[in-house]
């Protein structure tokens, strides 16, 4: 009866719908008579708009209206800067429709609304926008920051949007005292989340009630609602934002606002018709935000034994043409660079640089993959330079179990709070991965393979991830009187992470029901409208704990009421099987009946309800029907605000075979050891990690959004931008450690982004190890392609051909 459902491999409980074609993503919502939007987008990175002629487009049959910046009233403003920061001295955000200048290829210039998507897109081609000659521009951040570089925004010198320095300890002293210095420069290229569902927005305005309903494939419905209400000057209660089923997000869908998120509701109100915009794949590459390019110059100061005393990192961060999400990505990188290592002294300096290409906001990993690549490549190099084992160098620097909580004085994380690692067993993770790799066996295999002219390599990388940041989320619980089913709401939303299942498990434990009887409704401001969004691997931590607290309150109400109904002491009651029972007896009452009885009734609708009406003996009392401070029903709300982030971590390793002739790589084994605190559902955790690793493999090998020197995207489709298919992702071996977080009641940490973070350094480390006989140059640039391996072999100067 009291078996805990938390921690069990409960089957995902929302899938039958999705498996039978019953998923309801924005484009699947039936909206009769809906109009469709198509955008005219800038063909230039930087240019001035001289004139816009919409006359022919307007005449096109089926076109309802064509909007330029002149036609959108109050919306012709710069969109909000979401996360201001003192270091962000020159913030620039975009207007919904370009006004005067364009700043990147793909920027929205004109909106066409027509009877269907075909007509809208045809008409968009009939809009004549005249531009000046395109301005010079600099796509490369290292060039863009130079004194004579062309400027993206004329009033932002050197294209520097933000400049930030964070110092912890005394790095200068550490560098004086060190015996060895390791220096390197690493680079991660631009990528994009490419969720399988592109972004989508639909809106309907009800002129009678004055209510605006917006269906938005967003990770942040409540924040979108707040923003729309504020920009359109409407009461929040008149705006309902629903994120229905959302086909993946990975950060790309957390920005507010994309132009369409404002323009579609605007058009729906203006035209008094439902309007929708379904982004196509090319537009997802042109207009939805991207991430990743950073160049780090890292230096370690160490003892001869490989103990790192200090770190200096100076990096450039590409923020694209605008910086609506502030410096979150760079800030996360700037603290993540110290990894799981003690490194007591550090100085990190970065600049966020404008480039005239798609703006940057967080993509799964958010600055961590870059920082992890930098520090982990540095640790490998340090080991190599000192002639030490790569595993051993890490062991000497890992924060040990008895050092938690481990604070990094003076550093601030991206949530503005202190960097305090809450718990972990880093050395245990290292031991575990060594055991799982079976190092001795690998060494033998590597030698044997070399005899046959085959090149095996082993790579590894640690990672840490600050998860579950604030400000807060809420949980609302209501037990239904008729069915006894438990409805749960929270403000954030899912893009496939299985919230319906894990949150149900949390509630099921408290209320003694089966998880199938717990129904989660989230992502709908009409259901619950306090909260923030899904980002920073925070749903399980922040909403999970809020829901847990609400469920505890509901449990108390149920027990008190059942105690009265059964005339038993609360201590003698137990919950299970959807009922409350007096322990050791067959006296019980169903949860549905308790919920009914908790609501003093005038009218009976069934037998249980009769007992709750005024003339029923059980309800007779001289007191008011509801005691002081009591609300009707079993309904509770609670909120959880974390004190600061909780730090998950892990270590990955891979064994690869490299064919130096073809420069091809075959991943023989990929092993993860990870710790996300107490696991609510290991099956779901595995899904998160495996999906993350697959995206990490994309980042390690394939995913590079390419622009030519004029800022034109060169691979804005799935033929040319390579996302791994089933043929590219290897099987993944997964091992769990569970170190509870002391920060929250459930002891959980986030896991959504974890898998993605360390893959690139693991692969680079493995390839280097495999090609050691050739003495190849260090692999410091991802994604790694056969080309880059070929170049590294050519530059190695070693006798490359004779070894083949």
């Amino acid at each position, binding site marked *: 009866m009291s078996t805990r459902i938390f921690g069990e491999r409960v089957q995902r409980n929302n899938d039958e719908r999705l498996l039978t074609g019953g998923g309801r993503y924005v484009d*699947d919502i039936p909206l009769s008579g809906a109009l469709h939007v198509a955008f005219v987008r800038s063909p230039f990175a930087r240019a001035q708009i001289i004139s816009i002629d919409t006359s022919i487009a307007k005449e096109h049959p089926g076109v309802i209206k064509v909007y330029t910046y002149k036609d959108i009233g109050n919306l012709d403003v710069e969109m909000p800067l979401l996360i201001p920061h003192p270091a962000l001295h020159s913030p620039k955000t975009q207007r919904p429709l370009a006004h005067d200048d364009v700043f990147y290829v793909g920027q929205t210039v004109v909106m066409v609304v027509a009877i269907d998507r075909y007509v809208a897109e045809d008409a968009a081609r009939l809009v004549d926008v005249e531009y000046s000659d395109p301005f010079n521009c600099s796509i490369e951040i290292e060039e863009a920051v130079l004194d004579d570089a062309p400027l993206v925004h004329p009033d932002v010198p050197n294209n520097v949007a933000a400049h930030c320095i964070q110092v912890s300890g005394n790095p200068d002293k550490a560098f004086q005292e060190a015996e060895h210095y390791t220096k390197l420069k690493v680079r991660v290229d631009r990528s994009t989340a490419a*969720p*399988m569902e592109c972004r989508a927005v639909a809106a309907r305005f009800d002129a009678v009630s004055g209510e605006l309903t917006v269906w938005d494939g967003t990770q942040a419905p409540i924040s979108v609602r707040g923003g729309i209400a504020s920009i359109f000057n409407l009461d929040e209660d008149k705006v309902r934002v629903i994120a229905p089923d959302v086909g993946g997000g990975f950060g790309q869908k957390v920005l507010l606002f994309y132009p369409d998120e404002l323009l579609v509701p605007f058009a729906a109100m203006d035209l008094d018709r439902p309007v929708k915009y379904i982004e196509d794949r090319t537009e997802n590459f042109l207009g939805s935000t991207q991430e990743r390019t950073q160049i780090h110059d890292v230096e370690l100061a160490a003892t001869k034994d490989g103990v790192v005393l200090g770190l200096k990192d100076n990096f450039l961060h590409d923020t694209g043409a605008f910086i609506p999400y502030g410096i979150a990505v760079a800030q996360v990188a700037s603290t993540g660079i110290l990894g799981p290592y003690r490194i007591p002294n550090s100085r990190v300096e970065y600049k966020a640089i404008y480039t005239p290409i798609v703006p940057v906001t967080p993509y799964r990993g958010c600055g961590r993959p870059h920082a992890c690549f930098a520090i982990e490549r540095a640790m490998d190099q340090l080991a190599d330079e000192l002639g030490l084992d790569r595993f051993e160098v890490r062991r000497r620097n890992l924060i040990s179990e008895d050092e938690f909580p481990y604070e990094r004085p003076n550093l601030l994380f991206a949530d503005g709070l202190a960097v305090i690692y809450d718990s972990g067993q880093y050395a245990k993770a290292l031991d575990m991965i060594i055991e799982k790799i079976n190092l001795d066996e690998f060494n033998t295999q590597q030698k044997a393979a070399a005899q046959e002219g085959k090149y095996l390599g082993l790579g590894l990388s640690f990672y840490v991830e600050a998860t579950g940041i604030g400000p807060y989320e809420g949980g609302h619980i209501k037990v239904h009187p008729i069915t006894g089913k438990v409805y749960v709401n929270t403000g954030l939303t899912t893009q496939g992470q299985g919230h319906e299942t894990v949150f149900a498990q949390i509630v099921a434990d408290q209320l003694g029901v089966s998880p199938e009887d717990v129904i989660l409704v989230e992502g709908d401001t009409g259901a619950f409208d306090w909260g923030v969004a899904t980002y920073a691997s925070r749903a399980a931590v922040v909403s999970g704990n809020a829901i847990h607290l609400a469920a505890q309150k509901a449990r108390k109400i149920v027990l008190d009421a059942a105690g009265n109904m059964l005339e038993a002491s609360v201590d003698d009651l137990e919950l299970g099987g959807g009922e409350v029972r007096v322990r050791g007896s067959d006296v019980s009452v169903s949860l549905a009946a308790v919920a009914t009885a908790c609501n003093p009734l005038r009218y009976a609708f069934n037998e249980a309800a009769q007992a709750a009406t005024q003339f029923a003996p059980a309800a007779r009392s001289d007191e008011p029907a509801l005691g002081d401070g009591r609300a009707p029903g079993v309904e509770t709300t609670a909120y959880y605000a974390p004190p600061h982030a909780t730090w998950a971590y892990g270590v990955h390793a891979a064994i690869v075979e490299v064919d130096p002739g073809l420069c091809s790589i075959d991943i023989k084994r990929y092993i993860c050891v990870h710790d996300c605190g107490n696991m609510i559902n290991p099956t779901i955790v595995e899904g998160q990690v495996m999906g993350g690793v697959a995206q990490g493999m994309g980042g390690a090998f394939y995913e590079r959004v390419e622009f030519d020197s004029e800022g034109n995207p060169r691979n804005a489709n799935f033929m040319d931008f390579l996302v791994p298919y089933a043929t590219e992702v290897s099987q993944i071996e997964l091992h769990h450690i569970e170190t509870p977080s002391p920060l929250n009641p459930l002891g959980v940490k986030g896991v959504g982004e974890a898998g993605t973070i360390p893959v690139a350094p693991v692969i680079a480390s493995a390839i280097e190890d495999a090609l050691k006989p050739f003495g190849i140059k260090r692999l410091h640039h991802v994604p790694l392609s056969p080309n880059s391996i070929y170049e590294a072999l050519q530059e190695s100067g070693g006798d490359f051909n004779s070894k083949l």
Partner: protein
Amino acid sequence: MKTHITTTVNGEPEEFLCETEQTLLDILRDELNLTGSKEGCSSGDCGACSIILNGRLVCACLVLAVEAEGQKIETIEGMADGEELHPLQKNFLKDAALQCGICTPGFLIAAKALLEKNLNPTEKEVRYWLAGNLCRCTGYDKIIRSVLNTAEEMRRK
């Protein structure tokens, strides 16, 4: 001028009117309300729109609706036998082979087409057959296991 098309969809006769430029995917979704087939790219690269046309696995985004005249169309909506899920659907459910679910109809249809041709595929064959379908959430492994498990189960029957 709209064209009148007569087809069979999931075993039932179906007719519709369409413009010559309309894709079969759009007609299925917008006219026939069969929104289980999804648009992931409109260029034949992601498989989210996979359907079976006269026994052949195709991308509905690359088929014009007018080409469907006289053809037999199978979509995700016809995969279960009433309430009884197809073995692939059952195993996807059991093996947690989906997350956001937007790619799932495409994978199921593609896997069904594979198992109709070859009930004893190797892992490599499954991976290569499904290499027309993109999934951004799962990392594929659970999908592949699920298809292999289903094949084994169906062989035993």
